[in-house]
């Protein structure tokens, strides 16, 4: 069955022109997001996950520029349209939930004011209708006593409540794509589960696509349908969630999966990927992961690998992905 993607990112490159040089925060990223599906984007801090999200919405700061690539929403390239047309898409077709519900709400307005602003920006309704819609939305996202909460300020709500209010705001115009940028990172575990459950329910109800950006592999395993693994501004592996977790092909993905603590086997020390994320101003030549890679060969320091198809809907950016397979067999019992 061939589905058409709602949002399709093709060879997106976003560079930041800083005083120290050009930072290639996103350097050729491709993926598709399908209706009703969740696409997970994982990677360490600074790998370009969030910048990808900001590039899709074109809300980068003045130093950042999309230098190449396309962002297609139902076939329309968002990188080419006028700013005022883009404004009509933000919040209406593509909405975003940020990581910190503490700071993503304006402290001097009640949450009602803010949700109503979102509604009235894109829908022609009067204030009273907008208010009723806001109350309904708050109820829908599971905020008790929405008639009372609507007149409260962000600082009067708990973190989980604020994130629910953010979700209500994002859903106010029933967007086609919801970008959730680390939506649960700032929340504690029980609230995390509740928020993810809520997002899944609403996804079913509205049939929207979700782009779930996170560094939490557990969250991805439970919620995503497909996964993009990013490293240093590039996609290093792309697969559906089962394949990725059962059969990772890229050394980086493999390392990430090993770094998750497990309860079913005895571990004295948690595995960690050696080294640190490279400085984006001085990426190593060749494969950007090579200084940290267990399987590196001379070729990796010379040449940059391209994405290669290794299975059905499974691509990986590595010359020696077979080595990971062999290692997996060898190390069975030790890690996996």
């Amino acid at each position: 069955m061939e589905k058409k993607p709602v949002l399709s990112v093709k060879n997106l490159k976003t560079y930041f022109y800083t005083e120290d040089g050009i930072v290639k925060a996103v350097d050729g990223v491709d993926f598709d997001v399908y209706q009703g599906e969740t696409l997970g984007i994982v990677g360490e801090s600074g790998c370009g996950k969030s910048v990808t999200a900001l590039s899709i919405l074109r809300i980068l700061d003045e130093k950042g520029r999309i230098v190449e690539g396309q962002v297609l929403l139902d076939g329309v390239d968002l990188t080419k349209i006028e700013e005022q047309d883009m404004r009509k898409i933000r919040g209406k077709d593509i909405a975003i939930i940020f990581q910190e519900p503490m700071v993503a709400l304006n402290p001097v307005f009640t949450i009602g004011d803010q949700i109503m602003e979102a509604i009235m920006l894109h829908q022609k309704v009067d204030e009273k209708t907008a208010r009723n819609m806001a109350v309904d939305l708050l109820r829908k996202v599971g905020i008790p006593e929405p008639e009372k909460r609507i007149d409260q300020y962000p600082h009067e709500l708990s973190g989980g409540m604020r994130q629910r209010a953010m979700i209500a705001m994002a859903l106010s115009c029933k967007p086609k794509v919801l970008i959730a940028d680390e939506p649960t990172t700032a929340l504690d575990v029980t609230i995390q589960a509740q928020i993810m459950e809520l997002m899944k329910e609403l996804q079913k109800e509205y049939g929207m696509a979700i782009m779930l950006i996170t560094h939490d592999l557990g969250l991805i395993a439970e919620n995503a349908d497909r996964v993009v693994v990013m490293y240093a501004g590039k996609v290093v592996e792309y697969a559906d969630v089962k394949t990725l977790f059962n059969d990772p092909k890229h050394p980086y993905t493999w390392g990430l999966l090993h770094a998750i603590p497990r309860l079913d086997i005895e571990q004295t020390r948690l595995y960690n990927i050696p080294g640190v994320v490279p400085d984006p101003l001085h990426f190593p030549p060749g494969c950007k992961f090579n200084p940290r890679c267990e399987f590196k060969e001379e070729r990796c320091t010379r040449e940059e690998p391209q994405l290669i198809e290794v299975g059905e809907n499974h691509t990986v950016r590595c010359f020696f992905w077979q080595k990971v397979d062999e290692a997996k067999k060898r190390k069975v019992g030790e890690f996996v």
Partner: protein
Amino acid sequence: MRVETRRTLRRLLRNPSAVLGFSLLIFFTLIAIFAPLICPPQSYDPYMIPIVTWDKTPQPPSEGHPFGIIDGRDIFYGVVWGTRTAFKVGLTVTLTSTLVGLVIGSIAGYFGGWLDEVLMRITDVFLSIPYILAAIVMTAFLGMGLDKVMISLIIFGWMATARLIRANILQAREEQYVLAAKALGVSDFWVITKHILPNTIFPVLIQATMRIGSLVITAAALSFLGLGAPVGYADWGALLNFARNWLLGASGEALRYWYAIVYPGTAMVLFVLAWNLVGDALRDAFDPRLRG
């Protein structure tokens, strides 16, 4: 407006220094409004203090002249009508210079780049000139008179506001709620006016409120130096200017002419205090982020 307003009012009423500040302010306002009733004007220009005697030596408080007489003029009349002058100078200068500062600072902060650079360097140039000295030179250049004093105070009074609002906008621009607002499709103009300014305006309002008081002092200083209001104009600074010759008192009686200083001086001190207390109270009451 609902619960919030009542809560703000209650918070104001529970704060003794706020109550004091507002009471003083109301008191001064009433005096300013009812000045013609308290001291009926006796000439075509009510702001000119009527001359009651040709004797130039100060005369102590007496019936009919409760604050005494200086330079042949009734101090009480001068203090009462001087309240109007104080409000006029303080409000006009503060409102105008704050507005100028707001515009310059907002443009610099929001657009950044070379525009910011140019505007801020101009601000620096203005800041590098000592305030009083600049005001004196400017007034001397424009000519004497209260309106000229106000103009020079505006010309050299906008920089603090401009810097403050610029710094606040620079900071607020990076806040995630600004990004969130942009992500909702809010236009730049509305992002500034609706999301950034309400978050940055409070320090400016508080600063402006407090400046009303200190401006009155500056204006008085200029009057004291003989640059401000014309002789005989109802202005606290001008009254103090009369007192200048009698500051040392008489021989063996240093405090003989105390009334020449104490009454206009007290009025000025209380006026400044009132604005400062009100400024503090406003900050405590209206900024939701300062709430415990």
